[in-house]
């Protein structure tokens, strides 16, 4: 059971990120508690990845604060980073390392015991069907294989907070299914999960709470049930499109098809 009264593990307060004069994220606030899976949902360019990069410490916020267990994350950055497992949007990896070497490097960076690493990595590689390819250079991996390596690297150290930026991109159906169940099980076991995706279907299947974004600002937030109730008769997809896109999909599709078939 998710208890909304318990203190958040991770909280963003008035988060704003500017790139020059352009505000990619404006006054975004949310909180994630243990056992929650919070989905950041929005179309491309809505600021999801910027929020994720700011929360992971890869970008400095222009204004606002990130709190870890009620304290600014900079107060004990080491502890915060130790508690963090991060899957980035693009699985950028060192192509000249093998999958095993990469995982070993991450585990060593995180001070993981070598025997424990071998046990964990072997099990995870088996589970995500990468064990046979573990000694091949990552440069030869497909996007889905890279994505799975990144997921394993994020889980190796048993993180308290899991931040997943479009983690299903490039995964095959079976791996996506396994990952979805893993994330759900980890949340049930007390992890706090921040999940970013432009695909409503994935968020709907996985998340307990949602934050909907449009052009860097929050347009709706709450638990999945609250969101459904808030759309007053509309399903989630229709509600999301109404909030974020406001486009006439039929009209646009008609004009593209007409342009394609013009001789």
């Amino acid at each position, binding site marked *: 059971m998710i208890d909304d009264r318990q203190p958040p593990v991770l909280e963003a307060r008035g988060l704003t990120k500017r790139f020059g004069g352009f505000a990619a994220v404006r006054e975004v606030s949310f909180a994630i508690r243990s056992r929650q899976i919070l989905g950041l949902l929005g179309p491309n360019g809505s600021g999801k990845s910027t929020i994720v990069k700011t929360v*992971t*410490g*890869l970008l400095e916020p222009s204004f606002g604060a990130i709190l870890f267990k009620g304290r600014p994350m900079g107060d004990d*950055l*080491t502890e915060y*980073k130790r508690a*963090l497992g*991060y899957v*980035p949007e*693009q699985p*950028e*990896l*060192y*192509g*000249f*390392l*093998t999958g095993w*070497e990469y995982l*070993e*490097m*991450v*585990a*060593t*960076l*995180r*001070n*993981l*015991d*070598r025997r424990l690493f071998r046990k964990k990595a072997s099990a995870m590689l088996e589970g995500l069907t990468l064990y046979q390819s573990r*000694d*091949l*250079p990552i*440069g*030869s991996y497909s996007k889905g294989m890279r994505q799975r390596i990144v997921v394993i*690297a994020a889980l190796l150290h048993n993180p308290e907070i899991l931040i997943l930026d479009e983690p299903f991109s490039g995964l095959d159906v079976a791996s996506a299914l396994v990952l979805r169940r893993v994330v759900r099980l980890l949340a049930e076991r007390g992890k706090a999960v921040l999940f970013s995706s432009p695909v409503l279907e994935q968020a709907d299947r996985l998340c307990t709470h949602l934050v909907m974004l449009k052009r860097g600002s929050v347009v709706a937030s709450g638990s999945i049930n609250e969101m459904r109730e808030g759309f007053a008769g509309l399903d989630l997809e229709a509600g999301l499109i109404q909030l974020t896109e406001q486009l006439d999909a039929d009209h646009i599709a008609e004009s593209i098809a007409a342009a394609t078939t013009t001789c």
Partner: protein
Amino acid sequence: MVREGHADSAELQLGVGPLLGILAAPGAFQCFLLLEKYSSLLNWFRGRRHEDLLISSAPDKYMFLSIAMAVVGIVTVLKWDRILPDSQDYLNLAPLPIRPHNILLANATAIGIAVVVLATAVDGASILLFPVFVTDASLIATAGPIDFIASHALCMVLASLFGFCAVFAVLGELAATLPREIFRACSSWLRGFLLAAFIGLLLAGFSGPTLIRHLERVPHSPVRLLPPLWYLSLYQSIQHRSSPAMAELAPMAGVSLGVALGLTVLSYGLSYRRRFAGVLEGVRLPSGRSVLRFALALLDCFSYRTSGFRRASYRFVIRTLLRNEAQRIWISVSVALGWLLALQSASSVVSPTPRSTDSLPEASLLAAPLMAAYLLVLGLRLAFEFPAALPANWIFRSTLNCHEHESLGIARRVILAFLTLLVLLPHLAFVSWLRSFPIAALQTVYVLALSLGLTEVLLAGYRKIPFTCPAPGFRENLPLQCFLQLLGFVGFARIGAELERWMLVEPVRLLLIPAAMSAAYCWNQVRLSNARVAGEIEEGLSFESCRSPAVQQLQLLDGE
């Protein structure tokens, strides 16, 4: 020279104009250096009125031929991966309705045009200027400027073409015959050694007079294997000024070019099929793992034992140096060039009857390991600055607290590991064979001490995890940096060798080394401590590349 922003490689990114300018620079620079030599007025004063400049200009022709061959060869080696179409071209072109032989022809034409442009850029200045200087300076009847320009242009272009074809033939034949993964594994090492060979050829251009004299005296010496001498012989033959020894070598120019050209065409056809049309076939196997496993195991012996940032970073750095293309080429050039110079220095004094322990070793012999050490340490230090898969550094940035870690010790340990395996142990073995183990141990400790000092100087203020930061811009200071490193090299090798010789006269003087090192260490600790108190130094890791220039302008007028 490295333009920032190209994230994934340390490749030089220049516009066409500056690139052609840089390629033309060595030849043009050499022409202007010769102005004084070919001044007719000065020659009149010097009494060289009856000198046949077509003969006495042979060393300069040799220099120009070396430049033509080496510069074209170096560019071909550096751009090897771009010469043939790659998988990206295949993915873009294969779905289009273009026949494969059209793609082949288009690519071959592009290569031809590129070679012509390259040869024109490299040779253009000397083709126009050098013959004019010589014919103007000549006070006796020689060939006319047009004849001279034609013969000079012909030989220079042939030499450039040979430089290109030789590289293409070697790499192309290997690419065509070796299994794809084996070629991939050894290609960058091979390219590094080729680069070192071309740099050696370029440097040997200054030895033209000696080489020509040696060839005249001993026509069948190994010197005759130097390709620029073949083209010089052809040059002199065309101008009817070749000696008998040279006349013998002249046909080699045509034969070598014919063979290289033939092999180039053959390997192009075969490589095209393997690299382009077959680019998506087969599974990539671990690139060179079996070849490099032994080297990795040796270098890992120097790794930190306990798990954590330092162990992970050390192993990452070693693997990057051995496996990433740019770093591999850079390191192989440093090692090959270092050993080339070291062997050259040592070979002049090594006695054919070793094991004489009664006399002091020559300074040239003592300088040999110092030369190899200097170039290796400098090469590694520079290699650390080149990024490898830069976008992948997020793993370090998202995992580490930058204020908590230091990377200086890691960089130092990596340098020490390479130094031990590539310089200190071979030096120990060689001197043990030449003299005795105790002397070898003493000399090796001396080389180690000086190398550690050099490492500390080069790593002062180092705060990065190697390869994880954008390449620093050093274009504005490049000439000065090169000059400083040249001075450093000469000082380190020559003065270091003389100092060692002085210490070996009275071995007790060697105790000065630990004393000096301890004093330097204490001084540095005090300096750092004071700077820390004053808040003048930044500590912790950095993922930025803000390098202070070697020369800073004081901007004294800005305040007005």
